């Protein structure tokens, strides 16, 4: 099945959960936030959240930052999901 992860089209095995996805991508579950089709998931729900074909997943974490930096990039990376929300 096809899933959009952090703006990239990816193919995964059917029926995987968010926990499986993080594991496959080699991302530790602590200190990440996951948004599935614009809904922020509770960390405790990762193992039960089964992904479906066409889902959009955003995986975020903390990076160095003081105040606004690289603002053009920052803006761009959320535009796709925002327009999706308004549909």
């Amino acid at each position, binding site marked *: 099945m096809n899933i959009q992860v952090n703006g990239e089209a990816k193919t995964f095995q059917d029926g995987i959960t968010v926990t499986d996805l993080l594991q496959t*991508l080699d*991302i530790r579950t602590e*200190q990440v*936030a996951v948004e599935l089709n614009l809904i922020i998931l509770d960390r405790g729900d990762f193992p039960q959240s089964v992904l479906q074909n066409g889902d959009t997943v955003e995986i975020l974490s903390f990076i*160095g*930052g*003081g105040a606004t930096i690289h*603002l053009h990039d920052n803006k761009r990376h959320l535009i796709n999901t925002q327009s999706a929300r308004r549909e």
Partner: protein
Amino acid sequence: MTISGTSSTHNPRDGNNEHIMADDQLVIAGKTFKSRLWVGTGKYKDFAETKTAIDAAGADVVTVAVRRVNITNRDSENLLDYLNPKDYTILPNTAGCYTVEDALRYARLARAAGISDLVKLEVIGDERTLFPDTAGLIEAAKILVKEGFIVLPYTNDDPIVAQKLVDVGCPAVMPLAAPIGSGLGIRNPYNLKIILETINVPIIVDAGVGTASDAALAMEYGADAVLMNTAIAGAKDPIMMAEAMRYGIDAGRLAYRAGRIPRKLYATASSPIVGML
């Protein structure tokens, strides 16, 4: 003759800053902070330099941004591998957000990432100045406070807006000294002084500091803390500047508490006239 009088309970120093400031802690929303110098973690060469600079600054509050995890290059290290949330208060920001909607989204994502309810709220109004959109800021702050966030808003040096932020439940207010990364120092000392006089929550001067004297001045005016990033990270020697900032903050704070002499136009002799030939 009494030697107690109004003298300070403050003990002579041995050069150890932590000891100097130990009896003067900053408390916001029930959280106690050791350092009055807060630092951002952007623009450093690498995480090791970030950590060394933060420690040279003596900062226990560090701001971080929330961004997409790089899923294609997974060998990259995590900032929080270097900054253990047990040792530092991690303050996620909503930097880069130009709308209330985006700021809310990033704040909620930051909380979901599991550090705390703290958020440094930024709603930016303009790309060139990076001045806050204060109307959007107040709106976003109101919503986040209702959702249980501890909202520390980055705002303009406007006393009215600062009061409105307090009215919607912000436990501290963070007015800018000058535009982010500008290094111009305190551009509007009179507004800042009005904010410090009229606002009854801690005031953290955020953004625009260029060098140690700027930080000292903010503290001498009575600011409760100063948050900076570029002034340290952008210095030729960031580690040395971090240390300089630490002394600037401590010197300014002590001078504020000690109470400066009034400015006078004419001289006042400091040596007695009695006993002169």
